[in-house]
Every structure is written in C-alpha cells, then in structure tokens.
C-alpha cells in the first residue's frame, strides 16, 4: 500500500476515534443526567401531590394552594399533578381543577406551546390541553384542528371529544369527516373514543344517516364494544342494511348487547347469502333467550356449508341448557358428518369450561357416550 493511502487511513482512524470517544462520553453523560432529572421531577410531582390532594377533593382554595405549590415545586410539576388528577376525578371537582390549572398559568403555557414550530412539542401540548378542560383549552384545541400535522389534528380531535360539549363534538366530527389521510386503525380509535365519551351524540350521528357503510360499521362496533345500550335501536335498524359487512357487525353486537327485539331479524339473517353474516347472526343469538323458532333455525345451520356458521350455531345451541342440547344430541346421532362434528365440539368445550349439572347429564346420556 502506498504511503498516501496509509496517511488517509490514519486520518480516517483518528476521525473515527474522535467520533467514537465523544459519542461514548455523550451517551454516558446524557444517560446519567436525564436519569437524575427524571427522578427529581417525579419527586417534585409526588411532593406537590401530597400538598394538593386534600384541596383537590373538596377544598375551595385549590387555586391559591396550587399557586403556592407552583412557587415551591415548579409550575410543571403542579400542572402535571393537576392534569392527572383531572383524569381521575369527574364532576364538580373537575371544574375546580380546570380553574386551578388556568390560574397557575398551565393552560396559558400549553397554549403557547401549541403554536410551537416543533411538531412533537405541539402534539404533546395539544394532548395535555385535552386533559385540562375548560374554554381556554377548548379554543386552542379547535385551532389545532387545522394544523398541518395529522398527529396534532388527531390529538386535538381526541381532546375535543373528551370535552364532551355538543359544540366541541360537532367540530371534532366535522374535522374527522374532512380528514383525507386516515387508515383503519385511526378511524377505529376515533370511534372508540367517541363511543366511550359521548355515545348519545354518536347515536345521533348514526340516526342522521350521513355516514357511509364502512364508517357506520366502525361506529356500531365502537358502540358495541363500549356496551352502550342506547345504541340498540340504531344497531337493530342496521340488521337489514344493504351492506353485508354492516349487517354482520350489527348482528354480532345486537347479540352482545342482548337486544331481545332483534331476535326475529337475527333468525332471518341466519339464511343470509353471505357466510359471515350468517356466522355473525349465529354468534349473536348465543346470548339471547331461545325461542322454538330460533332453535329450529340454529339447528338447520348445523348443516351449513361454512365451518364458522356451523361452529357458531353449535356454540349458541349449547349455551342455554336443555332444548339446545336436544338438538345437538340429534345432530350427533344424525347422518350429516359436519353437523355431528360441530355439535361434538360445542358440547365437549362446554363440558370442559362450565360445571353446570345439565352438562354432566348430557355427557352421561347414552347417545353421547356411544359415539365418543
């Protein structure tokens, strides 16, 4: 190798050595320092909390006490404590906490941060504003709906939904509908939050029938997961919707929310052309009381071409004791191998996971034993 390349190599080595050395030192120092800072911040928040706890619960002088604490422990710590407290406490006390947050300037500070050029800071500020409550925060959130970063917009929408007031929700929904870059997960989470915070408004939205089927499906699912019984009429209405996926979701959650009035429609759906609708209907009927018509229809489903339909139907039949068991026993003794398998599986699972006396009787009954 020539001496030129050796020199080059030497330079390269020195350069890398310097980089390696400095980055190591930087890493170690950064770690130690940030660890210390974090510990100190937590300690401060804890101390502030001890001071403020009583006042948060029922004190009238929360604002002045908060100001005092802010002077001692720093506005950030107190702000954090108050915000987290507001996540836990609802009602009048929440209003008091909001007032305190405004009085120590936390809301003002967050509003300033909300117009920062750094996206991460903006987004965190908006999230925190969502926790603060109150008009000042709400206005800032509304402004943020027009932010150029979708994450900030999303945080703003979440905050407005949490605010709970009609106007805020309306604005949030309008922003959501106008959003072009959404993927399934974000849309789902929007509805999930909506259903938890303001289910009545979401039902109202569904009533106005302005959403397309995909959106309605997400809304129904969110309401179903949140177990909002006020959504039942809307869900029932969609059992006869044109879109099969929407029908299937409605069927699933009509059952989950135990809507008796849906039973006839669900039985109807057991003969739907799409297999997943039938399967969802069979699953939905699981938790509803069984009428003779229902039992008959489910029994027919045991011979359905789709495995999922058969499996769900058998499972539904095994839920409520005797009449269902009789049908399953007939299936086991019958000719159709698929029906037999499905009935078997359902009974066997039931035997394993419950200790109902009926089950023992079924298991011990001669027909079942003979084919075991």
């Amino acid at each position, binding site marked *: 190798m020539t001496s030129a390349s050796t020199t080059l190599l030497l330079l390269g080595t020195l350069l890398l050595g310097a980089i390696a050395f400095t*980055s190591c030192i930087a890493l170690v120092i950064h770690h130690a320092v940030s660890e210390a800072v974090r510990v100190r911040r937590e300690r401060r928040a804890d101390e502030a909390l001890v001071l403020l706890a009583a006042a948060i619960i029922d004190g009238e002088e929360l604002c002045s006490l908060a100001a005092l604490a802010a002077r001692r422990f720093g506005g950030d710590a107190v702000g954090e404590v108050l915000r987290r407290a507001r996540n836990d406490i609802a009602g009048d006390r929440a209003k008091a906490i909001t007032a305190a947050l405004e009085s120590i300037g936390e809301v003002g500070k967050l509003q300033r941060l909300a117009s920062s050029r750094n996206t991460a800071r903006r987004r965190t500020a908006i999230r925190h504003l969502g926790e603060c409550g109150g008009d000042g925060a709400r206005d800032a959130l509304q402004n943020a709906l027009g932010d150029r970063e979708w*994450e900030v917009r999303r945080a703003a929408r979440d905050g407005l939904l949490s605010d709970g007031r009609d106007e805020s929700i309306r604005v949030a929904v309008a922003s959501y509908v106008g959003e072009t870059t959404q993927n*399934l997960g974000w849309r789902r*989470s929007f509805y*999930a939050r909506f259903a*938890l915070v303001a289910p009545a408004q979401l039902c109202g939205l569904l009533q106005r029938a302005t959403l397309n089927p995909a959106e309605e499906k997400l809304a129904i699912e969110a309401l179903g997961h949140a177990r909002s019984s006020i959504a039942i009429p809307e869900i029932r209405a969609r059992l006869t919707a044109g879109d099969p996926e929407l029908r299937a979701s409605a069927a699933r959650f009509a059952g989950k929310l135990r809507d008796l009035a849906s039973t006839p429609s669900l039985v109807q759906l057991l003969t739907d052309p799409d297999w997943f609708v039938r399967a969802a209907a069979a699953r939905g009927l699981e938790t509803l009381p069984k009428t003779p018509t229902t039992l008959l229809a489910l029994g027919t489903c045991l011979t359905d071409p789709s495995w999922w339909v058969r499996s769900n139907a058998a499972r539904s039949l095994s839920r409520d004791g005797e009449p269902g068991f009789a049908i399953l026993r007939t299936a086991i003794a019958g000719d159709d191998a698929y029906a037999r398998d499905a009935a078997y599986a359902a009974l066997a699972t039931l035997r394993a*996971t419950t200790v109902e006396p009926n089950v023992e009787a079924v298991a011990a009954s001669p027909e079942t034993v003979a084919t075991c």
Partner: protein
Amino acid sequence: MLTVERILFAAEHIVLAYFLVLNSTYLAFTIVSFYDLRRYRQRVWRGDLRALLSDSSYLPVSILVPAHNERGTVIANVQSLLTSTYPEFEVVVINDGSTDDTIDCLKRAFALVEVPPATRVSIETKPVLAVFRSLEHPNLIVIDKENGGKSDALNAGINVSTYPLFCSIDADSLLESDALLRVARSFAEDDRIIASGGIVRVLNGSLVAHGEVIEARAPGTPMLLCQSLEYVRGFLAGRTALAKMNCLLIISGAFGLFRKGPVLAVGGYRTDTVCEDMELVVRLHRETRRLKQHGRVVFVPDPVCWTQIPADWRSLLRQRDRWQRGLLESLWMHRRMFLNPRYGAVGLIGFPFYVLFEALGPLIETAGYLLLPILWLTGHLNGPFVFLFLLLAVLFGMVLSVTALILDDLLFRRYARTADLVKMIGASVLEYLGYRQLLTARRAFASINVLRRKGHWGRIERQAIHHTDRRAASA
C-alpha cells in the same frame, strides 16, 4: 499475468472494499432507522399505553407454544402468557412428543380435560394424539402429538387455532404483557401486513419476578455482553431499515406474529429446514409478490419479548452455526428470487443484501483474517497500514455499536443504571478481542459445509427429528 503478487493485491482490495461497503451500509441503515424509530415512538405515546386497550382496533390472536421436554419452564411461561392484557386471545400449547412428563404437569397445573378433536386439518402434520381444554382457563388449549419437530408442532397449532392471527413464541421466552397489543395493532391498521416481528431483548442478567421482567440489566460476563450488544445493534439498525423497504427476510424465531390466512395459503412451516421461521418469511414474500398482493412484512420497533441466550461457548457456536445454515438453506431454496425484478424490492435489494452481507460476509471476513499471515510470510505486509486498518475496523464497529446504544437509550431507556450502559460500551470493544472472530470463523465453516452439500440436495437426508437445543444453562 497471474502472479502471487497480483492475487494478493486483488484479495487485499476485495477485503477492503467489502469492509467499507458493509460498514457504510450499516451506518446508513442506522441513520435511517433513527428517524423511523423516533417517529414511531412519538406516535405510540408511552403514557397512553392503557388507552391502547380501548381502541378496539385489534384482531384476536392465537399464541402458539411448542414444547418439547420443557417440564421445568412451560407451566410458568403458560401462566405468564395467560395473564396477557390482550382483549381476546387463546394459548395453544403443543406438546411435541415429550419424553418427560410435560403433559402430566400441564394436566395437573391447568385442570385439563380431554375433548374430541373436531378441527380442520389444513396442514399435514404428525398425528395428533389428544386435544385438551382447561377447566380454569377457557382460552387454553393443549395438544398432545407425536414428535415432529418445532415446525410440525407449530403447524399442528395452526390447525387447532381459531383466530385470524397467530404468534409463535419460544417456550423459554418471556412475552411482555402488552407486547401483543403493540404488535397486533399494526395488523388491524394495515390490511396488507402479513407478518411482523418485534424487538427481542436479552433476558440473562435481568431481574424477573412472576414471569415479568422488573428491571433490565446488562448481563455479567463479557460473552453475554457481546451477545446482548449484537441484539441491540441487529434489531435497531438492521431490521427497521429493511422493513421500511419491505425487504425484511428475518423475523426473530423468538417472537413472530403472522396472519393465518397467508400462512395457510403457502402451506405452513416447512419441516425440512433448520430455520423454519426465516424460510416461512421468505416464502411469504415470494408468494405475495407472485400473486401481486402487496403483502408487507414489517417490524414493530417495540420491545416485545425477552429470550434466554446461550451462556456457554459451545451452545453459542452451535446456535450461530444453525443460523448460518438456515440462512443459506432459505436463500438457496428461493434462489429464484435473487435479482429477479418480478419479486420487487425483495428480489432486487433484500435478497442480494442478505447474500452479500450475511451469507458471504463471514467467508470474506475470514479470508481477510487469513490473509494477514500470508501477507507476512510473503513479505508484503505493510505493518503500519495493517495496524491502522485493524484499528479502523474496531473503531468503525465501535461507532456502529455506540450509535445503536444511543438510539436504544433515547428511544427505549433500556438500562436504568448508567453502569450497565458503560458495560455495554466496553463490550463494543471487547467484541473484537476474539468474540467476533470466533463467531465469524464458525459461520464461515458452516457456510462451507452447506456449499459442499449443495450438490446432494436431491438425496433425502434422514435425521433424528428433534428440537434443536437453543437453550443453555441459565446464566
């Protein structure tokens, strides 16, 4: 004229050029990863982890746990899995013909009751002897089957599972309680995703209680530290960038989340390969491109799982030997994809990357080491140059490692104690004092073996079907 001089000259330059290209690529990957990881961390807001549970944007998951002679650890692990905070999941334990009393231990611990097996057999496996369900945990299923190896066990588990996603996890790995939540989210968000991996951390040395890691600590011995460092580097630097280009060919065997449909469509795991997880991923890539389905294999840069790493040299070398063989086998089985535009980015970028850097790398590197004494013997050794070069190599490696550690610290705050971090930095230098060389040599050796046997692929090699021993005595 092909003189010795010329050959040596060419060899030197090849090694040098290779070294430069390799390390520069890794450095570039690390930088790319940084931006990606930072964005991901900001999106998945740590504090709001509990709110993730509310999103209802999840698909139910079947957790498959193949077990072979694991009576000591399987119960604790299954118990730990059953306490996952995932909204809807089932645990399928497959007892793959254990010769000890694994199945009896399971029966006692979980109050198992035998049920008639009424499942569809979508993939052919060795016969399933019995299916059990638990009286106490309705979402636990245990299968007892004839011995068939890990792939066969997983296939049987897939047959029995009822959910659209399945996750394969080693019996001796600890799953984080909200790992499934973080990884399965992406499946619900993006319909194109067919497989996903996550960051696997090293368990040795950390504090564990009740199947949960309380505090992550760096392990004690240099050998374990070096391995730990490799994991940090590999996951943070390599995988993210490759996943971004949809060229990720390796999802860790310790944890992988797959969509069941595509896996069934390609026929499940292959039982005749050493690294079944990698082979499956490559096959998934191949099929999805062949059918123009735009499937993506992604990597969630979130820690999901803690795994035991080999604590003694023999197991470690055997493990690396197996990995290398598996890699070469998988690459060879799908060699059609190499530089084939039909297979998109995987064929044009991913495949060549793995061939050049992972498959051929050890060979070239070993050749480089062997070159030194040859140069010396033939009097062509330029002392200062070689010395500087070696120093450069070590420093480059160190920069790569420290960069990965910085990324790790900034994003995940892994080690609470600064001393641990210092230990890891130390490991980045120690690596070059023998650890790396030994592993590279073993990998080169494995490569040569595989290349030699390539000609005999037509012959079916009958080997004892057993679960390769990945575990070693705990540290």
